[in-house]
């Protein structure tokens, strides 16, 4: 990453200024897990207007032609502040880069500018009721029609499908043969298409950001397939490295951590040592994550390193919740930022080590990557 340090410093200051103004204007309240639960189309539009979405994409597609390091700086500032970034998160993080890699010229021209302006949101349609960590076992099927594909099946744990424009769905376009990774394709399905039914799923935090998407003979035009038909698995794998190694994998509970160390209640000696230990490991993870971003930019293999970041990061996110819980022990009715953040984080924590591939599966990826 060759971006001048002065560019990064200036950009960081600009994002912090923006966040301070938004906070002062009351446009958001800092929350934990903001990249999943903080859905605000209005806030996403503001980021788009400032050029902070699709930052690394070519200008021809509405991007900012900035470096990966600049994008990293913007997103880590937004996450650390607990800003509502969920509406555009999937499209900016993985759909855009996927389209740039394997999308058609038409797809890039019609879709990317909307994503970069914070006006077009995409939901990820990977998981299914029976697929869990074994993504290649998806059963949603697409069969050819005169004009494209007819898709039937069920997607689940899809965040914000009820508030997005497209579903990027992983579907089987050829019967399963010897190679279970063959015959899969990804296609963009308009969420307003006939036959699409979206049901929000209430989770234990009391929210309903997850949805179940039923696809009932949905017609999808042929030109909405992303990448070569039958080659969808490659796209999924390339998305996973982006999905697993970013700062959202260790900063989900950072707003709580920041409030704990700088809030009005001074931590005791035990808590201080816990804080020092967690901060050291968080710092190391950031260094590791930056290294992965660097490898991604140079298109070097990163599966193992990305899996490591997610395994370590998500466990640390959970540990930070425990540190805060032991340090501040709020009464159930306490209000104020720290008790509120703690309640949110505690209820969200069980999902950290599940989403994006369970940590047990990731550890298998790591061990095999090491040659064990």
């Amino acid at each position, binding site marked *: 990453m060759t971006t001048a340090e002065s560019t990064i410093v200036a950009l960081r200051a600009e994002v912090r200024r923006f966040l301070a103004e938004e906070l002062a204007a009351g446009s958001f309240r800092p929350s934990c897990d903001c990249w999943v639960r903080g859905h605000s189309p209005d806030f996403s539009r503001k980021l788009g207007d400032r050029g902070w979405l699709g930052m690394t994409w070519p200008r021809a597609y509405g991007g900012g032609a900035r470096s990966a390091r600049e994008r990293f700086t913007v997103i880590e500032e937004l996450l650390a502040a607990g800003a509502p970034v969920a509406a555009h998160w999937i499209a900016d993080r993985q759909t855009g880069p996927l389209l740039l890699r394997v999308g058609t010229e038409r797809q890039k021209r019609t879709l990317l500018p909307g994503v970069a302006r914070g006006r077009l949101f995409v939901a990820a349609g990977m998981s299914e009721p029976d697929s869990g960590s074994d993504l290649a076992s998806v059963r949603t099927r697409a069969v050819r029609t005169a004009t494209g594909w007819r898709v039937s099946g069920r997607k689940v744990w899809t965040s914000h499908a009820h508030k997005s424009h497209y579903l990027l769905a992983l579907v089987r376009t050829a019967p399963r043969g010897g190679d279970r990774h063959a015959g899969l394709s990804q296609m963009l399905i308009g969420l307003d298409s006939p036959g699409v039914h979206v049901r929000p799923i209430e989770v234990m935090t009391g929210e309903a950001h997850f949805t179940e998407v039923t696809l009932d003979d949905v017609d999808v035009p042929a030109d909405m397939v992303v990448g070569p038909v039958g080659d969808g698995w490659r796209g999924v794998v390339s998305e996973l490295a982006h999905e697993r190694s970013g700062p959202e994998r260790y900063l989900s509970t950072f707003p709580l951590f*920041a409030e704990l*160390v700088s809030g009005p209640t001074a931590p005791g000696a035990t808590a*201080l040592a816990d804080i*020092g230990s967690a*901060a050291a490991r968080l*710092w190391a993870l950031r260094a590791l994550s930056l290294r992965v971003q660097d490898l991604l930019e140079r298109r070097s293999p990163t599966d193992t390193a990305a899996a*490591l970041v997610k395994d370590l990061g998500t466990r640390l996110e959970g540990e930070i919740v425990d540190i805060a819980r032991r340090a501040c022990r709020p009464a159930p009715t306490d209000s104020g930022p720290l008790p509120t953040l703690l309640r949110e984080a505690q209820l969200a924590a069980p999902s950290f080590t599940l989403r994006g591939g369970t940590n*047990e599966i990731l550890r298998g990826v790591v*061990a095999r990557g090491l040659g*064990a």
Partner: protein
Amino acid sequence: MDDREMLRSVVSAMLEAQAGSARDEAARQGWSAGLWRLLEESGLTLVSVPESAGGSGGDLRDLATVVQACGYGAAPVPLVETALLAGWGLASAGIAVPSGPLTVARPAAASTTLVPDGPGHRLVGRVCGVPWARAARRILVLAAAPGQPGRTVHAVIDPRDCEIEPGTNLAGEPRDTLVLPSRGVDCRPLPAGSGPAPSRMALRGALGRALLMVGSLRRVLDLTVRYAGEREQFGRPISRFQAVQQQIAAFAGAVEQARAITDLAVETLQQDDRAAEVVMAAKICAGHAASVAIAVGHQVHGAIGFTTEHELHLHTRRLMSWRDEDGSESEWSAELGARIAGSGPGGLWDLLTGRPSRVATR
């Protein structure tokens, strides 16, 4: 292959070729004079010390490469103490750096006294736990000047003027007691605000230890991955068992974490040689990883790893010693946590995103 990778492979090859004889020698006298001579002849013992002060030049990143290779090879030589600590300390105090093994001593108030003597002081008593004292040609002693906050006094001692009571850490590395001559040792003040203050020396010690640990951790990981692939149980390599894979992956994660933050600490110190917190973070992560490495390394190796026939114990015993030397993970965590809590709103995030910070006077 870049220059530093070349340096690493040259040093590694040298250490590997000498490993057997160096270990025999260390078993007899605690260190290997033969290996030391070879490293010194190759100009590897004073890397990062300016040539103008008698060193062999290069920067901290070059030295870090050599130190990690020494950790990887469990080399029984005082490389960190010579180049990173005493060499740096002497050079930054404007004193010519002598050849031969060097070390530093940090006197504890409990066993030493600084007696006023004319304009200066005399240090009397005994200094415990001096690394490699028996091997050193010179020992740099640093102490806080009594009644003068922020000022440092120093002495350069020829150990032949002292009595040395041998001692070792769990790994058998010399941690000797230096019995100072009865009339004491003259200590002179260093110029205010410059040179090797004890707090800066302590941080460099922590960094050196973390670098050795990262080298050793990587060796244990390599040994463990290899063994898991070779050792068969129930008709298949034990690496095929998911329970074993989980352990190895957690181990690899802790090692990568320690490596990433230690690299960052070296880079940061290269830019700003008073950076403090990132060095603490490096020693904390290295200490944390050491405990994982010891547990998983031995669990995977089984009984053979517990024997002295196998190389593993050389690293286990070093990691056990090193995680506690130059500040354990709990000591540095308490210090880092206190600094973070005292840094106000946004302080933690500023720290993690790279605003330079300074060593506070302790």
